[in-house]
């Protein structure tokens, strides 16, 4: 913790405060959520069918999607041509878009505000996303440079009274978080909740979005999730990242797509698939009881079992205590 606090300015996270939070957060007994784990061995498989079946298992279908404007928010963090484990794979984005289109969505957009690169176009081109967006005729919104709206911070776990958000978020019916399944050297894991750092506009928060680091990464994740209130998550775990994520880690083929409406439930399921204890990931522990359930017995797992699909993602030494036992 000392090392993390050093760079991020977490400062205010006193041990007693965290203990109080954890007592409160254990009260998630009235919360339940369903999470779908779908086997997807490679990007060459029929991802559209896998996602359609997975969402259907969650009772999401045409009746709910028809007529909606849907924003897909992938994780495009850096321009990397030779490291496919860094960014959400373009074919996962395309397959998700085609599912929503086939169910009658009025419009499907893709939006992202990369945290490490001011030149969003470069990230799109280097990640292969630009070609897929063009082929699939998908409109892209650069959330770093969108018009801004100031909104009240929905949770106030940080000291930030308001959050500046891209105006596009207020113009869509659904926001779908489409992260990569990765370890993260400050946050432990980066999944559907941490992915939402990418909606925060760089023109207001900088590159990197250092304001949120100083406000506290875990607490910022909670505030953003509570304020943006995404409707769905589809996690690209076909090839994830282990070790020194979110940028410099190694590829880790996990062969899964994980889906669900409740983001803490989805992310804690992903953590278990990575053999990481979600209770030892600060933002997940803090989310419990506030934003959703993370306890295994409060999450209804559909599709594949965690036991069959999990594999141990490598962890940096300072997160080694987060490894699930057994």
């Amino acid at each position, binding site marked *: 913790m*000392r*090392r993390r606090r*050093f*760079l991020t*300015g977490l400062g205010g996270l006193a041990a007693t405060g965290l203990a109080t939070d954890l007592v409160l957060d254990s009260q998630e007994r009235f919360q339940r959520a369903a999470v779908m784990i779908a086997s997807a061995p490679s990007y060459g498989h029929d991802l559209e069918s896998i996602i359609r079946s997975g969402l259907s298992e969650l009772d999401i279908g045409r009746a709910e999607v028809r007529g909606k404007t849907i924003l897909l928010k992938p994780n495009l963090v*850096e*321009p*990397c041509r030779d490291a496919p484990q860094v960014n959400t794979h373009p074919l996962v984005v395309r397959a998700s878009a085609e599912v929503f289109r086939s169910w009658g969505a009025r419009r499907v957009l893709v939006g992202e505000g990369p945290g*490490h*690169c*001011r*030149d969003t*176009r*470069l990230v799109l*081109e280097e990640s292969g996303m630009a070609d897929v967006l063009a082929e699939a005729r998908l409109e892209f919104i*650069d959330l770093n*440079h969108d*018009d*801004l*709206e*100031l909104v009240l911070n929905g949770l106030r776990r940080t000291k930030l009274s308001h959050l*500046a958000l891209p105006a596009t978020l207020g113009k869509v019916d659904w926001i779908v978080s489409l992260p990569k399944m990765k370890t993260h*050297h400050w946050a432990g894991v980066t999944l559907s909740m941490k992915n939402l750092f990418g909606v925060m506009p*760089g*023109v*207001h*928060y*900088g*590159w*990197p979005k*250092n*304001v949120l*680091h*100083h406000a506290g990464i875990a607490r910022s994740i909670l505030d953003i999730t509570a304020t943006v209130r995404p409707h769905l998550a589809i996690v690209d775990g076909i090839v994830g990242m282990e070790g*020194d994520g979110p*940028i*410099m880690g190694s590829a880790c083929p996990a062969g899964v797509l994980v889906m669900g409406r409740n983001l803490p439930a989805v992310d804690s399921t992903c953590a278990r698939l990575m053999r990481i204890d979600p209770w030892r990931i600060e933002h997940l522990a803090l989310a419990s009881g506030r934003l959703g359930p993370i306890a295994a017995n409060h999450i209804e797992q559909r599709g594949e079992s965690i036991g069959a699909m999990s594999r141990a993602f490598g962890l*940096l030494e300072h997160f080694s205590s987060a490894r699930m036992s057994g």
Partner: protein
Amino acid sequence: MHGEDAARQAASWLASVQRPDGSVPSSQVTSAPGWTTAHALLLWQGLGGCERMRHRAREWLLRTEGRRQTVEDGERGVAGHDVGLAGWPWVAGTHSWIEPTAMAIIALCAEGDRNHPRVVEGIRLIRDRAIRGGGWNYGNPAVFGRTLRPQPGPTGVALVALAAYGPVDDSIVAQARNYLLRSLPTIHSAISVGWGVLGLAAHQAYPSEADSWLEAAHERCREHRDSTVGLSLLLRAASGQSWTNGIGESRARPGIGAMRAEGIKR
């Protein structure tokens, strides 16, 4: 509208949103952050006049610095750079990063502040943040002992800032030049190509192939109607001007006529 008329209109608008403290906010929705102040100052300098706004912007820049941090035993390897140096942040109260530091240095050097201690420290910061192997990214050369990847945009703007401070030809500059010469031929994104070529030109390393890089980036840029920043950088790079020449008539090169016409139309 003639280009200079449009620029003067933009300068007047920027003056109208300048805050009493001298900063020019990045959005009309909020009063901060003010990293855009250096950009406004460069426009006012280029057009000439605008002394009162320039003075207030310069004072604000000199007062604004990134947060310094302290290093405890064993922590140097976490950050990979000297966290005690201060340049300029994107947002007040946060750490210093490459682009706002470089832009502030470019603007302040053009104001005659080349020897100001803030500029001198900013130059030290830029050099300290250079990535082993060549170039810069947003400002993190390494984390947890792992060297991070350079990017052409920050590399270009850092090279321009070093040139604005004074002629320098050392291994940091040479490695950055080499990185750009390796990476730019395969990149078509306007902002990255524009800054990359400007960085090379600032160190007299404009290669003969650069015109074709700019043309290819311009072709790609035309597909995206929201590419004003990219187009502006391409035009600037194609003009053959250095940043210290101000905004005036540019030296047109064959093959970039379409790009200039497109810029004027917009």
